[in-house]
């Protein structure tokens, strides 16, 4: 069946806001490009002999007001931290301070080209160096690269460094990475991408790494153990020192997934836990906006023995600034490319610098005392919700949690057929974003709740009220939950249809008709 046949998604006419391509009107223009103003032949003549575009790309043709209205209307169809509670577990959707955006938008930062001379980019290099020092203070590590663009990108850097380390230390035949069954999918995908086989470790009945199981899994084939601590259940691995000792005894390195770093700032440091390599998600812990999925940043920090393998370039400070610091060559901060064992770069240039500016501003604004208080309130808020919800919802590991906890809709599913997904959808009617559902995988009907420290008690209470009402509805009028949401712009998109008949782009009407005619002929 053609994707455009009746019944397919392309034949629907109702849409909340039409695609910008459907709003296009030939000849309409917004941005005007000025004339070249130079005496030369035309571009076509200058480029003669090369293959030029035969058909213009079908881009929207609209005046600026129409473009602005379209995207403003689209913005109205999003939930966002600035609109309401966003307790998406594992994502740390905390408030993003406005001053950070303003500072990152300063022309001195935004107009800076990555290949400018070192003496012309001292402000940004200093900021990057200072940010690295702050991240090292929080993690207790030795050196960091700010280059990775995201957490998963940082994981790849970390595991490629592990591979390079073993290659240089007689461990080239180590081919396995151990991850707990509660791990993020990225950990397993990263290990695979770095050429490793994955061994999944079943969690103990306390939801933690079991030392005996770990000891059995470790061998001379183990390259690394990847851990998140607190783990994805929001529980601190209280055997962490024993875990890293066992791993090191087996010759393996230990990777710390910093997704949950927001729980422990100023309380405990991955470096003190014995971690060899750590990635941080600046868009989580250090409050840079998530942007609808990115850009974030995922710096990686290492212990001394992995330092030689960091991606280049690194930012460094000259210990004794040249007396003529204003003169070329006298720059205080510089980029170091001479790092012979480096795994090499993982992206162009130096990292998501615009994101780094925001994280730096956040860390300076809060300082050591503020970061500590942020973690304390994050943990306070999570435990408050856990205690207030545990009568209505199962909490499989119901003890003191860190910055998040995992509840379950098992009871609701058993009694009324209401699933975690249904509860997630019903919450949207209350103006609350759903928690993360169906993750981690070792909890059935998981509802993973991370309130963050920037939510007031009133907000938390409203969330509890909504959750309790949903539980009540589940028992008395489950239809309202099963058919939720009711007030959102759309309701329960048909994901099966989307996957079965993928329509991944708009097509011009003429092409669409042609496609149907072609289908009819055949």
């Amino acid at each position, binding site marked *: 069946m053609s994707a455009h046949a009746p019944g397919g998604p392309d034949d629907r006419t109702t849409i909340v806001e039409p695609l910008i391509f459907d709003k296009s009107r030939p000849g309409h223009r917004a941005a005007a490009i000025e004339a070249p103003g130079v005496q030369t032949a035309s571009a076509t003549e200058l480029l003669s002999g090369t293959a030029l575009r035969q058909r213009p*790309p079908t881009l929207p043709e609209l005046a600026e007001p129409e473009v602005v209205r379209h995207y403003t209307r689209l913005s109205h169809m999003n939930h966002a931290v600035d609109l309401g509670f966003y307790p998406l577990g594992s994502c740390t959707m905390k408030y993003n301070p406005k001053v950070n955006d303003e500072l990152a938008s300063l022309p001195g930062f935004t107009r800076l080209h990555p290949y400018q001379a070192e003496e012309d980019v001292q402000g940004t290099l200093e900021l990057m160096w200072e940010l690295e020092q702050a991240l090292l203070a929080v993690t207790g590590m030795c050196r960091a690269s700010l280059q990775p663009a995201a957490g998963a990108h940082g994981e790849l850097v970390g595991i490629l460094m592990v591979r390079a380390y073993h290659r240089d230390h007689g461990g080239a035949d180590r081919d396995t990475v151990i991850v707990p069954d509660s791990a993020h999918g990225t950990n397993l995908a990263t290990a695979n991408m770095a050429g490793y086989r994955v061994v999944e470790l079943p969690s103990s009945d306390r939801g933690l790494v079991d030392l005996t199981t770990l000891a059995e899994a470790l061998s001379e084939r183990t390259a690394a153990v990847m851990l998140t601590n607190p783990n994805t259940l929001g529980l601190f691995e209280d055997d962490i020192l024993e875990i890293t000792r066992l791993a090191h005894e087996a010759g393996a390195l230990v990777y710390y997934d910093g997704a949950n770093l927001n729980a422990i700032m100023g309380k405990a440091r991955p470096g003190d836990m014995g971690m060899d390599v750590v990635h941080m998600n600046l868009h989580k812990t250090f409050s840079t906006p998530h942007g609808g999925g990115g850009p974030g940043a995922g710096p990686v920090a290492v212990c001394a023995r992995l330092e030689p393998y960091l991606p280049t370039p690194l930012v460094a400070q000259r210990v004794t600034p040249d007396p003529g610091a204003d003169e070329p060559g006298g720059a205080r901060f510089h980029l170091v490319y001479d790092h012979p064992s480096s795994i090499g770069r993982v992206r162009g240039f130096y990292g998501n610098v615009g994101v780094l500016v925001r994280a730096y501003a956040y860390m300076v604004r809060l300082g050591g005392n503020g970061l500590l208080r942020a973690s304390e309130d994050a943990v306070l808020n999570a435990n408050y919700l856990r205690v207030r919800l545990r009568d209505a919802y199962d909490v499989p590991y119901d003890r003191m949690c860190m910055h998040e906890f995992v509840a379950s809709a098992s009871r609701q599913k058993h009694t009324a057929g209401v699933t975690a997904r249904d509860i997630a959808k019903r919450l949207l009617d209350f103006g609350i974003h759903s928690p993360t559902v169906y993750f981690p995988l070792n909890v059935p009907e998981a509802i993973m709740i991370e309130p963050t420290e920037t939510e007031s008690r009133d907000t938390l209470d409203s969330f509890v009220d909504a959750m309790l009402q949903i539980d009540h509805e589940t028992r008395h009028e489950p239809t309202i939950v099963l058919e939720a949401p009711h007030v959102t712009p759309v309701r329960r998109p048909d994901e099966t249809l989307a996957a079965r008949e993928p329509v991944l782009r708009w097509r011009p009407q003429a092409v669409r008709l042609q496609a149907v005619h072609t289908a009819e002929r055949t």
Partner: protein
Amino acid sequence: MSYLPHTDADRAAMLQVIGVDSIDDLFAAIPADLRTCVLDMAPGIPESELAPKVTALADANRTYGSRSFLGAGCYQIYVPAAVRALTARSEFTTSYTPYQAEVSQGTLQHIFEFQTAICELTALEVANASMYDGPSALAEGAFLAARHTRRDRIVVSAAVHPEAAEVLRTYSSGPGLPVTDSTVDPATGRTNPPTPEELEGAAALVVQQPNFFGVIEDLALLADAAHAAGALLVVSQGLLAAGVLSPPGAEGADVAVGDVQPIGNPPQFGGPSAGFLACRDQFIRQLPGRLVGKTVDADRRVCFSLTLQAREQHIRREKATSNICSNQALAALAATIHLALLGPVGLRQLGEVCVTRAHSLCDRLTRIDGFEPLFSGTFFHEFTLRVAGGAESFAAGMRRLGVDPGVPLGRFRPEWSDLLLVAVTEMNGPDDLTAYVEAAREVMGDGKATGERSRR
């Protein structure tokens, strides 16, 4: 305390609900041995002190405005105010990956529009929701080719950006895919079409259009060479040329990658921006990253959702096509909006202005003693000059006169120390070109009124 709503009374009341006496009790699971750490950082400061402190750092940078001629993968283009105003809306900035489609239609729809725009610019059938940046998209594009062809060798043109080629090598070190170079014609600067022997067992031939040195490649020739050997052609495409040059898909490329940066996104010292990855329909299930699809909702309304997620890490775990989790939605949105403001005519004109000004500048510079064009091949808006006496010292002299004249290529290879890569965009007006030429004459010691010699 900044950004934290609780009063001490709130905290006390909440601790009581939890049933503990103090905040410390909440952290009891952390072993005592670990809880001794003190955060070695200065105490926080108010916003009124933060702003001048960070502004001073911005002010410690020096930018050259329209007198900057730096490119090499990062370009300065005027970004319309509407792009900044719309992308600054916190409904876009403070949302996350659109897992809950009902409250993420704004993000889902603009990603769908982005995917469409990228398909149009590349002339390929499917594009994903974006990658980290151009170089990482290039590596992912090569990996896609390796999965599809079930071959493991990658051949990369020596005229691909050296940093992008390095990223490809770093990525390839994990699974152990060999990466080999293919040569460039020393006269034209175009990639030599590899022979079937050179491409034997190769998954992909990777080239850049326009290439690193600014020269326009003959993609059709390279596509034929790749296909004759059973390899895919992966093209890293510069978007400033997308309205003018024949797109990769029309020239036989199988995969197109690149960076949206020049469109809608300022340089920002190299990031963030967004990479793109487009390919032919038949590779859909090998695509890495997020994809947004069109569907209908429970009331049969057209809407959008993430789709084909069985390729991705959160479903497939270690069998995923990539470990990538994010997409650069906000940077992609900036590009989508800028493209909507430009339209097809504006995008073509933007490219044409870049071309004519670049050729004008190149023409005037190569009349001055000491400058030679490195290659004879037709260039787009960026060109490589051989500078007598070395590019670095010339550039330093130019900067003293307020012109940042291009990227000295010695930073990439010591043997390139006399090469300068000059980029011209619509930001460099006629007066800026003249200022460049005059400053260049002065720096090269060729200040005579008749300094422009006739071309050979």
